[in-house]
């Protein structure tokens, strides 16, 4: 019992240190700095990656619909929060749109999650009866269908069709100067909830389904209901993640939520380790930092003295990046963490020692 308390205190301290770190970096590096961008976007991706990991890594469902649920969440958030005064301008082709009220940011975030969860519940009913790669391709298809519907001109007064949504409250509006702290707070709470779920009796049931569906069912676990739960919960957080992404971007367009986005998140999950929350979080920050910041120099045509550095040209960054990803996929299949968590690293060693004695 005491040991458990100690561990709780240590984890709380670590989390507090991360928050303080984020807070300090923003205040010392200034909001223009790339570090701040990376911290914001990395945190948002961390939530989305963890939500996808809940499905693909913990429940063993190969779903490729994440971008679709993010899209739903992002749109729900934006539609509900665009200020009345700006609606006429944003919905310039649709006479100001149908929605004529606004709600606060936090309620809107919650609604974003709920709407995504509702979509997941409806889609899950037929789709979750499929297995393996058929499930993957069906969820991918649904994500594309959602995107087509959102862009449909007839519901333009709701979604603004295929046009950009803007002027909704973004990260900087909510806690001016403390955008990183705000992102960390929301993401932290969400990931905390997912962790609690994973370590609850339901989380164990999810893992049982991942390990062996037949045995799980023989243990009295209702496969469909539990898959549905994982699917809905994952989509709920993907919806919130999508809303956060919208807040981070400042503008929103259905077109960017393509299957390529799902693939990117899947690759983050793989790099972090399928079945590891802390792995997904670390991989998100790493992935975002590399793609947005550290590897950017690869895209710039650089002169060293009088010689143009070979290969460096727009697009080279992504080539290097995808080669690295292939190397991970092929040779480090377990990713950074495998199925372990950061805080379990010490434990396993103890267990090993115990067996020897």
């Amino acid at each position, binding site marked *: 019992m005491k040991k458990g308390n100690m561990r709780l205190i240590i984890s709380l301290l670590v989390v507090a240190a991360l928050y303080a770190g984020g807070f300090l970096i923003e205040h010392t590096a200034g909001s223009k700095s790339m570090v701040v961008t990376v911290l914001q976007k990395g945190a948002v991706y961390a939530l989305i990656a963890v939500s996808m990991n809940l499905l693909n890594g913990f429940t063993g469902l190969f779903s490729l619909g994440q971008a679709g649920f993010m899209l739903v969440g992002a749109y729900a958030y934006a539609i509900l929060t665009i200020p009345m005064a700006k609606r006429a301008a944003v919905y310039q082709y649709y006479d100001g749109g149908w929605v004529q009220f606004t709600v606060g940011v936090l309620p809107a975030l919650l609604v974003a999650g709920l709407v995504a969860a509702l979509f997941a519940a409806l889609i899950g009913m037929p789709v979750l009866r499929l297995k393996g*790669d058929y499930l993957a391709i069906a969820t991918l298809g649904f994500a594309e269908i959602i995107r087509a519907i959102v862009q449909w001109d007839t519901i333009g007064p709701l979604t603004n069709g295929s046009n950009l949504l803007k002027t909704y409250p973004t990260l900087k509006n909510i806690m001016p100067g403390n955008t990183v702290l705000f992102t960390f707070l929301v993401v932290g709470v969400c990931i905390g909830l997912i962790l609690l779920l994973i370590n609850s009796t339901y989380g164990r049931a999810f893992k049982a389904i991942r390990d062996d569906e037949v045995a799980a069912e023989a243990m009295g676990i209702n496969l469909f209901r539990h898959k549905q739960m994982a699917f809905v919960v994952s989509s709920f957080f993907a919806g919130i993640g999508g809303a956060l992404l919208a807040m981070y971007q400042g503008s929103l367009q259905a077109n960017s939520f393509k299957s390529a986005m799902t693939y990117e998140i899947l690759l983050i999950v793989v790099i972090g380790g399928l079945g590891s929350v802390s792995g997904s979080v670390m991989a998100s920050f790493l992935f975002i930092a590399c793609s947005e910041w550290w590897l950017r120099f690869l895209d710039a045509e650089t002169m060293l003295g009088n010689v143009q550095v070979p290969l460096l040209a727009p697009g080279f960054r992504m080539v290097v990046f995808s080669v690295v990803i292939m190397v991970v996929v092929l040779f480090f299949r377990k990713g950074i963490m495998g199925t372990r968590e950061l805080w379990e690293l010490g434990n396993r060693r103890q267990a090993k020692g115990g067996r020897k004695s």
Partner: protein
Amino acid sequence: MFDTLLPYLLAGISVGGQYAMIAVGYTLVYGILRLINFAHGDIFTAAGFFMIYLTASLPIGLSIPLVIILTVALGFVVERVAYKPLRSAPRMSIMISAIGVSYLLQNLMWYITGGLAKQYPVLPFLSQTIRLGSATTKLVTIITPLLTVGLVVALVMLINHTKIGMAMRAVSVDFETSQLMGIKINSVISVTFVIGSAMAAIGSLLYFTNYTAVTPTVGAMPGLKAFVAAVFGGIGSIPGAMIGALIIGICENLIKAAGLTAFSDAFTFALLIVVLLFRPTGLFGEKTTDKV
């Protein structure tokens, strides 16, 4: 009525035939490896770029066989590098690898071309304009379905009557047992990829003659649609893939004719989901039984 619909039907049959060329690659690979080869659409795109870069310095007559050879080589290399090492890994790993390869190929093509659309060379014979009843179209529209049917028949013959074809069928029924029976799994799989890539290369010649701009992501959509066609026709069945592709091509164009253009892509996916739910084995697929 028929006069107004004829151009749409022609366009549908033509694009359907081109999807069929890609779909054959999907269905063969899935039949044997149970792998959705996400990179197949990108191999198709690469074939388009090969043609553009080759014709810049070589005559077209020489370029065409070279394009097919290069595409086949690419398909072969992708299989050896990205799929072979994962043969004993869980299926999810191989699929992730396939997604990774697709990501890599797209980024590579983006880098080489600068992400700009490239103009596909004019193939003099295929690009001729002809009149057909109420419709004016390129000759390739007529050639495509004929060529597709011809190639599919040839392929079915190959699979049913040659030794390698027999091996392919054996491997698709039972991977392990056929290995025990002394079939060289790796060469069978390589042959599968070679055939699939060659078909994709021929498909790309036809497709890009019709739709002359090549961008790094141009193959993604036709690739997905071809996959849906393969599922619709019954995965593993080559005639099924062709018929599925033709149906999808025609439906797509009829939907556009009905004015629902924004949903022509969504339709494909809706069809996929309906098929998966109500007839997961597709039109001509074989039933498999689950073992506990």
